[in-house]
């Protein structure tokens, strides 16, 4: 039971305008002379990039945007024709196909070639290959930032100092060269202050899902909420304003005891509360979301919304320790956590958000996420005693999204949760 209007939240509209303006600015950059840096979402150094008045371009975002606009199939097909293996990440192939098709971005305008490839090698091996491939195509200067893996679940001083040394010796000089501007640490401190403000509000929004009913969907809705902070806007006043408005909007929903807005309208009766591990499918994003909302299922916490930074355990960008704080940010992106830490996080989410169960959405493209998920699933079930389920598809390759199969599995899963709940009450 839900309202049938397919309205977008105010914040969603605001975000759409922000992103459109950014793409438009990028498209006009050959005329305006603005320069850009291609980089990745996990471990993105947006404040640092913008410290030099450079514009960030995020190929993963381009790939998922292409997918949501139905273009990824052709782009992937083109990359495979050019010799890219069917076995590898479809984000990469979608991006390569987009580049080979004229590099037209989500707003229908051509994106500029990179002035610098900032290879933030954080939590994903494929990133390294991706930018080696782009470097070969664009002949662009490339700078590597290697972020060590949190293999033992802790950040050591050696890891932090290794990153800081790379920032000082490699990354900042490369950004200075690409922009022709000097690094301004006072400006960076101010940017980080703005980042922390926005992060406070984002965390408040994500944690609002602890309420019953939850006013948000922390996975499908969550990907909209993380949009500005994970992409081009962290450290800007725009991001601060966006997250303030989002927070007010969610507060209104809480006051009215409203459920989350979905593609089919507002969920009026929250029947299931679920935690989800893994990225969403982008090719059938709304269809996938409806499979949950039609069942009255609300996702109250997700790990994907931590892939560009984990803020809900207390980390904030710190203007008093700017470079160290950037290092800690990079180290704390979700896929940079070892598996035991990921399991602990999921168990914590299950308990703190009072979830009925865990669903893993495993994507073929992303071994960083997927390798080990079956073990994680078993471990979370063992520790919480709550039902777990497993779904498979892909990020942006529509050939791997089998709607009937996923719907069947989801229906069975929710039946199982309902039975278990009924059993507990008997």
């Amino acid at each position, binding site marked *: 039971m839900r309202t049938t209007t397919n309205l977008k939240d105010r914040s969603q509209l605001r975000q759409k305008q922000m992103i459109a303006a950014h793409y438009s600015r990028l498209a006009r950059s050959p005329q305006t002379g603005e320069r850009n840096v291609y980089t990745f979402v996990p471990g993105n150094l947006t404040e640092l990039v913008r410290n030099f008045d450079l514009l960030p371009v995020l190929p993963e975002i381009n790939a998922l945007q292409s997918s949501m606009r139905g273009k990824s199939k052709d782009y992937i097909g083109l990359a495979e024709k*050019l*010799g*890219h*293996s069917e*076995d*590898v*990440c479809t984000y*990469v192939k979608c991006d390569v196909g987009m580049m080979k098709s004229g590099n037209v971005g989500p707003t229908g305008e051509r994106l500029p070639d990179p002035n610098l490839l900032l*290879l933030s*090698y954080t939590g*994903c*091996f*494929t990133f*390294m*290959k*991706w930018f*080696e*491939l782009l*470097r*070969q195509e664009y002949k662009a200067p490339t700078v*590597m930032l*290697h972020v*060590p*893996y949190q*293999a*033992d679940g802790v950040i*050591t001083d*050696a*890891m932090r*100092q*290794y990153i800081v*040394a*790379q920032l000082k*010796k*490699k990354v900042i000089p490369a950004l200075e060269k690409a922009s022709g501007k000097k690094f301004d640490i006072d400006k960076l401190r101010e940017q980080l202050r703005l980042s922390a403000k926005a992060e406070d509000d984002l965390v408040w929004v994500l944690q609002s899902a602890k309420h019953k009913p939850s006013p948000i969907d922390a996975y499908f809705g969550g990907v909209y909420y993380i949009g500005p902070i994970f992409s081009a806007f962290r450290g800007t006043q725009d991001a601060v304003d966006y997250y303030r408005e989002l927070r007010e909007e969610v507060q209104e929903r809480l006051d009215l005891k409203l459920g989350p807005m979905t593609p089919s309208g507002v969920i009026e009766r929250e029947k299931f509360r679920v935690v989800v591990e893994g990225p969403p499918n982008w090719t059938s994003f709304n269809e996938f979301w409806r499979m949950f909302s039609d069942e009255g299922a609300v996702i109250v916490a997700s790990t994907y919304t931590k892939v560009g930074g984990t803020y809900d355990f207390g980390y904030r960008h710190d203007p008093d320790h700017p470079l160290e704080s950037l290092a800690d940010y990079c180290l704390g992106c979700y896929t940079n956590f*070892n*598996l*035991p830490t*990921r*399991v602990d996080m999921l168990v914590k989410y299950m308990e703190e958000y009072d979830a009925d169960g865990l669903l893993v959405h*495993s994507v*073929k493209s992303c*071994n*960083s996420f*997927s*390798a*080990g*998920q*079956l*073990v994680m699933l078993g*471990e979370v079930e063992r520790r919480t005693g709550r039902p777990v389920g497993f779904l*498979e598809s892909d990020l942006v390759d529509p050939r791997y999204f089998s709607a009937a199969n996923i719907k069947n599995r989801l229906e069975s899963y929710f039946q199982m949760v309902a039975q278990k709940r009924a059993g507990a009450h008997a």
Partner: protein
Amino acid sequence: MSKAEIGALIERCDELYRDLRLDSVRAWKERHGALAIGYLPIWAPRELVHAHGCLPVGVMGGGDGVEIIKGDAFYQSYICHLPRSTIELALNGSYDPLDGMLFPAICDVIRNLSGIWKMQFPGKLARYLDVPQDFDPEVGGVFLRTELEGLSRDLEQRGARRYDPESLRRSLALYNTNRRALTELYELRRNEPWKVPTWELYLLMRAGLVLPVEEHNVLLDLYRRGVEDDLERRPLDQARVLLTGSFCEQPPLGLIKTLERAGCYIVDDDFVQVGRWFTRDVPLCGDPLEQLVTTFLLHSMGSPTRYDEQDTKGADLVQRVADSRAEGVLFCAPSFCDPALLDQPMTVKAIEEHGIPYTSFKYSENTGQFQVIREQAGTFADSIKLFSEAVNE
């Protein structure tokens, strides 16, 4: 060394290759009462492990010798095969003699396997070897040294001999000898491939993963002298090929034999790279740990697992083709191997630009049917020979 003695030597290597229960390691532990530390491909600081009095043991999965029962329950269908058989062998007790396992930074699958190991085998040492992708001694070097010092501490806490620079220097010298012996065999194969069939060389390298380095050095020397003197090993009309892509999950031995039977002389390859990872000796002067770090940073082989800072991977492969006088390239990668398959379009481009013939196929470590690959490799070898003859006419 007689033909029979060479045969016996290779037969012993074959037994070690098939010794998935690590009986030779169990026997070594009984004799020495020391730790055995496993490591996955591609590079591990074996010298340091050895200097602590431990036996470094290379783990390369189960090949085609183990039925996967539990391992498949750990991984989705789109993940490569090596971690399945590795976990299978660990769960069925084959890796019981290993007191710890090192997981080099190869890819996300091996990285995450380190976490699975921590959860499945909490009593064992499970250490991810995070090697730097920044090769500046003052940046990446400082980090790698800290990593190696951490490994040293872990080994000592498990009862290994305390770190001692002199001991590390002795280990470096032994592994320098080992690397030189392998390099000489690669050279001999390049010059006279009929003397050193790749399947034999491969088994010799695999034996080096489980034998103490001192013993392996003797074995390599015996083999080289034996085949150099063997006049019955005579040239055949085969095509010279370079094989690339098989650096982590290894092809089954049958596939290597198939390629040779199909008319290929493999004159360069990526197999078992740990034995040849450094491109020069580790200097024995000064601080040995620092020398190990610096050699890793500045004198390692190029690899798809390593950031190609100077964008030379294509040129490097073309150079390897020239150095080995290969007439064609076999891109031979495991299915779902991200490093190999993501790299391939870049190296293929360089090969195409230089007009070098190539063909590509995929395998998994337990591939059992070689007919299709045999036909493909045979046709490729024939086309090279025909093309070369046409050019030479």
